[in-house]
């Protein structure tokens, strides 16, 4: 996996011009995601109309992979039902750790641009953090972390 191609495709565009970046005044669901290994954090706000995510916004401090993942995630889940979003969360997490067979039908569409992170074990958490946080928001957990117990990856960033 050439990380340059991972960066050069859609990710850099979303890093530079993140979609749905900001806050929501009328949020019904909200969560903060945190990666304690690098200090990155992400705030995700949702407005649900019945079972449908009709508004979504995020902001925070993170690397390009995380920010682009969050940006593309918001465009993917906006207008979708809670169940659709849960399916995407599961498929994205599986893809990032290499557990999803991309040859069988899935719902990720352009999000498969992130498939390459499975070859960058120290960066998997960067891509997954927004999805963890979305999951937490949908379940009204107000704070989550990449170090949560259900975290599929435990690769440490390293020590001095």
């Amino acid at each position, binding site marked *: 996996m050439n990380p340059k191609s991972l*960066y050069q495709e859609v990710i*850099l565009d979303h890093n530079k011009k993140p979609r749905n970046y900001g806050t929501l005044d009328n949020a019904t669901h909200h969560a903060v995601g945190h990666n304690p290994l*690098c*200090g990155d954090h992400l705030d995700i706000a949702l407005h649900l109309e019945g079972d449908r995510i009709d508004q979504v916004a995020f902001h925070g401090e993170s*690397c*390009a992979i995380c920010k682009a993942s969050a940006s593309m995630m918001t465009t993917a889940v906006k207008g979708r039902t809670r169940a659709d979003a849960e399916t995407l969360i599961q498929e994205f997490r599986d893809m990032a750790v290499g557990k999803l067979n991309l040859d069988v039908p899935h719902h990720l569409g352009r999000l498969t641009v992130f498939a390459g992170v499975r070859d960058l074990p120290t960066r998997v958490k960067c891509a997954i953090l927004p999805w963890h946080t979305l999951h937490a928001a949908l379940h009204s957990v107000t704070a989550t972390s990449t170090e949560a117990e259900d975290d599929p990856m435990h690769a440490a960033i390293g020590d*001095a």
Partner: protein
Amino acid sequence: MNIVEPALQSRFGPALDVERIRTDFPILKLEVEGNPLVYFDNAASSQMPQQVIDRLVHYQTAQHANINRGVHYLSETATAEYEGSRGKLQHFLNAREEREIVFTSGTTDSINLVMHGYGRKFIRAGDEIILTTLEHHSNIVPWQMLAEEKGAKIRVVPINDAGELLVDEYEKLFNERTRFVSVMHASNALGTVNPIKQMIAFAHSRGVPVLIDGAQAAPHMEVDVQDLDCDFYAFSGHKLCGPTGIGVLYGKAEFLERMQPFKGGGDMILSVTFEKTVYNSIPHKFEAGTPPIAAAIGLGAAVDYLSAIGLDAIAAHELQLLNYATEQMGDLPGVRIIGTAAIKIAVLSFEVKGVHPHDVGTLLNHEGVAVRTGHHCVQPVMLRLNVPATTRASFAFYNTLAEVDAFIAALRTVQKIFS
């Protein structure tokens, strides 16, 4: 900036034959992602020369048995080699006596040993311990644990924007309750070399003992514990061309004698009954259980290797690398160096405008350049300097100016990708 004065340069003697030295390090021949490895993560861990690898192989091949027990040939050989290594470390630090060298698992273990052995015995409620903003988490957390247990207080020496300790503020922190000072010799994140000799002298004028965390200094400069007059000096083997899992605590004999043991077990006792146990003498009192014998012997070989090259020559070459890299980086728009102390070890922390350190690290790796990214286990420093994380290049004596060029070129590539 750290431009070497010509007078200073000549004092360090002739330049290193780096190309010859590099042939001692098999790992430096690696290619990463199709590019020659440029290993600039030496502050995290250094690489091992063939001489140390061979020493480990020879020990395991022909000398291994448990030490201090058994009268057979191998046990006697292993004991002699292990204790011989202690002697090498004594000379490396210029300690007065061999028994002032305690083998530990590393700097963290050494600091924890002093916390448990000295701190828990002598620090009481209301007492104060002085640390600095620059400290690695391993020189903060043990003291916080002690402070919480005893009701003691931590006082912190501030730094300026360049990452230098404010020595005046340090002196003002002393009062009648000050009982201990623990300070790093050189900063892993910023490179700052602290004026520890002056700080030790001041603490001693107030009757306060001092521990020096030498993890980042011992591999890069001459350390003379008698000249410094520190009471404890801690460092790790793996940052000094030795194996992981081995480190040293130097302690003045009078301090080690007064300390309580931290771990109980075999080797640290003279006699055991269920009524009473008599502890062994120093340093064995602190080396319970079977130690990492091979690693200790490997560390002895590593200090032999470094001493043969000469720490002054190493320091001079690394300063040249630092100055050159600092200068080259100054020509890159959007790159800001974090940590600009007047006296530094060869550590270069920096930010690239608009690019997160993890993205810098991943893309540099693709060019074959290994750097550290993140908070470097110094979150208080990051908070003080208001940077969430940095990218850090840290140099060793086997690095070359050509590698600095490759690193700068790779940084330009990163900037181009993000432009």
